Structure formats: C-alpha cells, structure tokens
C-alpha cells in the first residue's frame, strides 16, 4: 500500500507531467516495480521519470561516463530518452554496490565445479514451466547443481551467481540491470548462456506474426522496437539454447556463439498430470456415438491461427450431427460457433495444468490449426506432445517443429496448405477412420515417451554436447 502511496504522492505534486509520461511501457515498469521494489526506490525512479528533461539528461550522461570502461557493448543502446532511462533503471543499486566493491579486487580466474544458475523472466507461467523448471529438472536428474531466480529479484539472482559456474539468462532484455549482470558474470568468469524460445529478437520475422494484429498499433510497434534489446543480449553470450531447429537457424544469423537445441519436453509434471487423468477419467472408446474434436488455445494470440480451420470446422459441424467441439482457453471466434451449435460446442476456460490435461480425455481428435508463416515455423510441438501423452491423435498444420516430430498418417495428420478443402477432407478422414486414429494415438504416445520427455530423451531433443562443453 505504501508503494502505491509513494507514486500518488509524486503524481499529485506533478499532475501534468505525470499524465504526459504515462504509456504502456511505463505502466508495465511500474507494475514490475510494485511487485519487486521498495517504496523509496519507486518514488525516486518515478520522480526521475517526470522531473526536468535537462536534469535527467545530465544524470544519464554522467552515469554512462562512469561505467563506460566497464560495460562492453553499452554504446549499442543509447539511453537518450527519459522513457528509456525509466525503463532501464529499476533497481540496479544493490548489484552496483556489490559490483563496484568487488571490482577493486582480482576477477575470478579458475572456475571450479559445476553449478548452473538460470536468471529468467518468469512472468509467463508456461515459459517458466517449459524453459526454466524443465531445465532444472533435467540438470537435477543429471546430478548437476542448479537453481533459478526472477531477473528482477536482484539479491537472489546475484547470490546465485556467486556460486555458479554457468549462468543462463532466459528471455531477459538488455537493460542497465542486465548489463551489470553481464559484467558480474564476466568478473566471476562464468560461462554465459542465453535461452530463447520465440523469435522476439528478430524484428522482421516477428512482424510477420499475424496473431499480433489483435494488439493495437502502438502496442505492436512497442513490442517490435524491443526486439533489439534481446538481440543485444544474445550477441553478448558465450552460448545460446533454443527450443526448435528452425529457431536455431534463425539465431545463427545473429550470433557466432554455439547454439544448442533444447526442446520443450514433457516433464515430470506433464507425465504426472497424464497419469492423474488416466486414473480419474475413462478413456473414450472407438464405439462412442459422438466424435469430439478438441482445440486447446494457450493464449489470445492464436486468433488468426484458429481462423485457418474455422470455416472447415463450421462445415463439418453442419454436415455431421454427431461431431462436437471442445475449446479450452481463449478463442473469441469460437463463441460464434457456440451461438450456432449451442450444446455441441463446449467452452472450457483455462484453470490449471492438471484440469487442462484432463480435457484430453474428453476428446477424440486434437486439432492444431496454425498459420503457415515464418513465425509459426519457430513453434515447438507442445500441444502434440501433450495430447500424445494421453494417446489422443492430432491433426495439425504442416509448420514448425510438428514437421520434424510427426510422421503423416502414422503418428499424426498434416494439413499442408491450410485450405478449407484440405482441412475438411483431413477432419473427415479422421472421423471416418476411428480404428486408425486409435493406433495413431498409441504410436504418438510411444514416440513421445521414448524421445520427448525429461525422463527419456535423446540428442535429437536436447543436444548432448552442451553438457560437456558449457556446463
């Protein structure tokens, strides 16, 4: 509460300047700050944002001059604007004090042992699961000491780095704070890795993502502008890990450091959730009268993807009375389907991972429509892996990592062109061959369990060399 008051105090004193400075990025920074900073810091930084331009500009240049000899690639990001400053300031005081004190002594020379620290943007729960906790699980299974922290939790991150031998930054942008993290990593002689699982760093490619069109223009521009902060981080790291072979290729245009494939896998939680589902739900049989198609949508950002199969689905629902549709998560356009088909279309909001996994037991076919574009080429095959754990067959657009993992008509069904005709024929093929579909589901399950789980995986899923070379 005192944090909110500290903002209001400054805002009320300078109402006009405050209003002039409110934009999405600043509000986001404020929300982070409310979560992680003390009220004094918030008040100071907020005041810095709205105080006179000249004063602030002078501060910035002095701070830059002070750090000029220490920060390797600082010049790439000019911190001229006040807004940049605000965005980049949150709170590096703690780490700066530590860094300056120890910078007077010798840097660490010979690193002994093995300990991995993951310093990550943990704001998206699915990213935390797939890119952070999964790594921790895999490393722990290999008996390698490791831990993780939120990158804005500076004391924890800094402490982890002190005993680490390798640090992996996940999805954090270049900022004043990350610049000191990099410096500290170099002082400690750590091997520095960067993990990224979406092409957020590639402005040109990211722009092609039609799913972004649901954002307003300014929001989209903001997102695209930030891509350079990610590039800046990637270029300063000793190695990079990423989730799909295509992303590996994209990344190789940005860095000469080694890039390792580290796929999203089915982890102990996923396996456990599948197990719970198997224990608590009865498997649907081939003899059921109805046929249920399931669409699982992780976020709002799949609207354009869903539309690629929407008209085919409409036509199927109109033609086949026994076909029902279950939709989990966000899908605005699905609501229109519900209006027409009432009880034949069920909408289930996303609640938690275990409930989410149990919905696979309610369906006969998992449908994954995706736009075929460069952005989706980067996509991993999580939704296929998940449904396969419960031996539910998948029909999916021929794009992304699905292409590498699924064998057409053996462990899944591909739609190559996304045409309405192809989608309709594909779905019909599945509806009419229920026995084949059961086999397809079992094949998929075997394949996933053999090569794409944290318990059993091969170098195709996580490139083994990383354990010898980087950890």
């Amino acid at each position, binding site marked *: 509460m005192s944090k909110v008051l500290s903002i209001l105090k400054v805002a009320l004193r300078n109402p006009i300047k405050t209003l002039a400075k409110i934009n999405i990025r600043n509000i986001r920074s404020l929300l982070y700050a409310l979560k992680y900073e003390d009220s004094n810091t918030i008040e100071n930084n907020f005041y810095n944002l709205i105080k006179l331009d000249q004063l602030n500009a002078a501060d910035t240049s002095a701070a830059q001059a002070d750090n000029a000899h220490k920060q390797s690639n600082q010049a790439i990001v000019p911190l001229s604007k006040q807004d940049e400053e605000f965005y980049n300031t949150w709170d590096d005081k703690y780490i700066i004090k530590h860094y300056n004190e120890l910078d007077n002594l010798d840097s660490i020379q010979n*690193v002994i*042992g093995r300990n991995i620290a993951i310093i990550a943007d943990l704001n998206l729960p699915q990213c935390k699961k797939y890119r952070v906790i999964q790594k921790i699980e895999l490393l722990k299974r290999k008996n390698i000491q490791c831990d993780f922290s939120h990158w804005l939790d500076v*004391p924890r991150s800094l402490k982890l780095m002190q005993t680490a031998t390798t640090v992996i930054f996940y999805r954090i942008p270049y900022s004043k704070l990350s610049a000191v993290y990099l410096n500290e990593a170099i002082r400690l002689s750590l091997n520095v890795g960067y993990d990224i699982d979406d092409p957020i760093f590639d402005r040109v490619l990211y722009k092609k993502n039609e799913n972004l069109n649901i954002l307003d223009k300014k929001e989209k521009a903001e997102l695209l502008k930030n891509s350079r902060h990610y590039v800046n981080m990637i270029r300063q790291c000793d190695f990079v890990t990423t989730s799909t072979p295509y992303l590996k290729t994209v990344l190789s245009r940005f860095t000469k450091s080694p890039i390792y494939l580290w796929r999203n896998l089915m982890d102990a939680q996923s396996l456990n959730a599948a197990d719970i589902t198997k224990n608590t739900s009865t498997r649907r049989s081939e003899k059921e009268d109805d046929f249920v198609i399931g669409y699982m949508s992780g976020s709002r950002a799949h609207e354009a993807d869903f539309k690629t199969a929407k008209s085919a689905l409409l036509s199927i629902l109109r033609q086949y009375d026994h076909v029902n549709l279950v939709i989990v998560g966000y899908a605005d356009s699905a609501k229109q389907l519900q209006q027409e088909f009432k009880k034949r279309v069920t909408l289930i909001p996303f609640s938690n991972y275990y409930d989410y996994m149990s919905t696979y037991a309610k369906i006969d076919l998992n449908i994954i429509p995706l736009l075929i574009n460069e952005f989706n080429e980067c996509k991993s095959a999580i939704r296929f892996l998940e449904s396969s754990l419960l031996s539910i067959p998948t029909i999916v657009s021929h794009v992304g990592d699905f292409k590498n993992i699924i064998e057409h008509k053996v462990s899944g069904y591909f739609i190559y062109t996304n045409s309405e005709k192809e989608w309709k024929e594909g779905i019909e093929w599945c509806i009419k061959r229920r026995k084949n579909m059961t086999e397809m589901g079992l094949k998929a399950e075997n394949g996933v369990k053999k090569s794409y789980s944290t318990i059993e995986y091969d170098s195709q899923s996580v490139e083994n060399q990383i354990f010898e070379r980087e950890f």
Partner: protein
Amino acid sequence: MSKTKYLNVNSKKKLLSVNVYYAPKSFGGATVVAEEINLRLKNNFNWDITVITTFQDKSYYPYHLKKYRIKDVNVIAINLPEHSSYELIYRNENIADIFANIIKSIKPNFAHIHSIQHIGSSFINALHANKIRTVLTIHDCWWICERQFMINKAGRYCFQKKIDPMACMYCVDDISRFEKRSEYLNEVLSKIDLFLFPSDFHRQVHIDNGIDPKKCMTNKNGIMMPSVNYKKVQSKIIRFGFTGGPGKIKGYELILEAFSKVALNNYELVVVDGAKNLGKSWSHAFKNAKIEGKIRIMPPYTQNTMDDFYKHIDVLLFPSQWKESFGLTVREALVRDIWIISTNGGGTTEDLVEGENSHIIPISDNSDYLLEAILECFDKNFQKFDNKYKQNITTYEDQSQELNDILIALDQIVSHDS
C-alpha cells in the same frame, strides 16, 4: 567460442578452506596462517582452493554472498546477519545450506577448517553427509570452552586439564545453553576425520578432553621469515619489545610493575600499538607509566612490515598469563635473533631453550620472576646474539609441505578404512 576452462571437475585435489576472517580483512593469527598456507598449497602443491569466510555489511541481505579472488585463491564470503545470538555463533543452519550448495557444485575432496566462531559448526554436518574428508585445525579452545581461551570470568587462565563442566557452570552466564552448546559441538566433532594442532601442548589439551589421540596430529604453525636484507639496528642501550597491549592476560601489568623496580635508565621499552588496527589506541596506557627507561610506541605491523619492529628490539617480553596454543610472536622473534623472556605457557615454550635463547619464568602474579629475568639482560651483550636453534622453527613452507603430505595420506587411510 565456448570457454574451455572448466577443467577441474575431476581434479583430486580440491580443497575447501574455512575461516571466519580472510583477506582483505585479515584479522587474527589463525587468519594469517590460513592465508599463508593456502597460498603455498596452491602454488607449491597444485591444490584447487576455495575459501569460505564471512563478512558483515547490513546494507546487503543476510547471507548474501560475495565471490572474489585474493592472494591467489577464490573466496566466497557470507554476509552474517547484523544481529547474532549465542546459539548462532556455534550453530547456523543457513550457513550449512550455503555449504551444501557449494559442496554439490565444487565436489571438493577435502575441507580444512580453521576458526569458525560465528560461522557455526553446522556446515560440518553437510561435509560429513557428502563424504568430504574433513580436517580441523584447532587454533584456540573454542570447541571445549565457551569463553574460547580458557580464561575465566575473572580474567584468569583456568588451568583445568580435563575440563569439568561442573566447574564451568560457575563461569558461564547460562548453564542450560552452555550444556546444549557442548552437546552439539561434541556431536559435530565426531564427524571430523583428523584434528591438527599448532603445538604438542595444544594437542594434549584436546586429547585430555576426549578427542581420539589417533586422530590428533601436531602441524606446527609456520611463521614469516625475515627478509634477506634483515639486519638489526645496533644500539648502546637494551631494547625490550612488547606486542601484547594493556591486558592483564598478556602480562602488561607485570611488565610495568617489574620495570618500576628497575633503577637503571639505559634501556628502552618498545611497545606496539596493536589497537590501531581496530581504530583505537593503547598509547595512553604506556605513556603514563612511571619507569626510568624510555618508552617508544610503534605502529602495528603487518606480515610484510614486521622486520621494521623486530630490528629495533633485543629482547621480546612475553609474560603471557595463560597457556597459548602456539605463540606466533615468540617464533617470529626467535628467527630474528631476539632473546625471549616468556612464561611457561603452553605451546609458547616448545621452541625455547632455557639459557640459550631465552629465559622461561612461571605464570605468576609475582612480578619478581620477570624482574629477575629483565635484570639478567643488562649483563648480556645482545649486539652479537645469534640464536643457534632457529633452524628448528617451522616455516610456512614446512607447514604447508607437512599439511600436503597429511592430506594425501589421509585420503589413503580413509579410503582404506571404508
């Protein structure tokens, strides 16, 4: 390019060295020994050393870590909380957790523990659980006496051989917490593979108090040898040196009392103002002394500047009123051809030869023993005094060589046992 410096994962000579203080804040004799030994173990015997120590800075969160490199080794310093407690000084699970993490990362083969008050002994459980060969050098009486030096409430050495907890009950502030401490520390001591002592005397004290003699070895402390250019500054008057400060236990009162009875004035009393290290001064205590001779106050010396002190004295006064575990000053003086007047106190006398390089007096309130020894000095000619026994003094090279051999032998013995 990936870095290829992570070569040490399989080294068999990885050592965790633990001491409450470490450079850049070198404080106390054990700290100096730990620093000098680590430097030589690393450079002469190729050990991979990680030092764990502490610091205190309330502007960081408690248990914040700072890793840095100093004196050729990597150091991880743990920030101790601002407010400690009786219990936290000997038992600290937070620090044990930090150790567990470090052990699992580094996978050391050995741990060498020095002074650990304030670090607490709980981390030894983590070493034991991870089967790390653990060597403890006992520099003082912290493990068997909550007052650390067997100096009682009244400021006197307690002279117990086998410590009777019934006697200690009258000396401590709180009996039950004292008992809990002893119980806990004894349990931890049972997890140590080998005990080292800076003197035979100190070894015997701990054997008398229940430590298995088979696990106890003497590994005499080394000392800093004089520089090759070291040469005493000649003087017509005798110069007596004292490094102890105005504490009863170091014999300060006895010195002033004895000199007040010396009717000569052809001498100088050279005292080191050790309190300056802590931002204070002892000079007032000496300036007002009523003695005939001249008093000269010298600033505190470091390992590198000690020659500047010793070259100005002929006799070192060491009338310590307790039984020291080693007696670093006495050895530093002996190798610099300085005559010693020392009480018969513990490890101090083990390199002294009565009448040849020193005069040994009893621990006593009576200043006449000291007076007699001082007066004898006026009949000696110190200008050409040469200590014939100085080659017997252990150097840091000797100590680290011996420690290296001990660690390697221990590895074989413990492997054989298991």
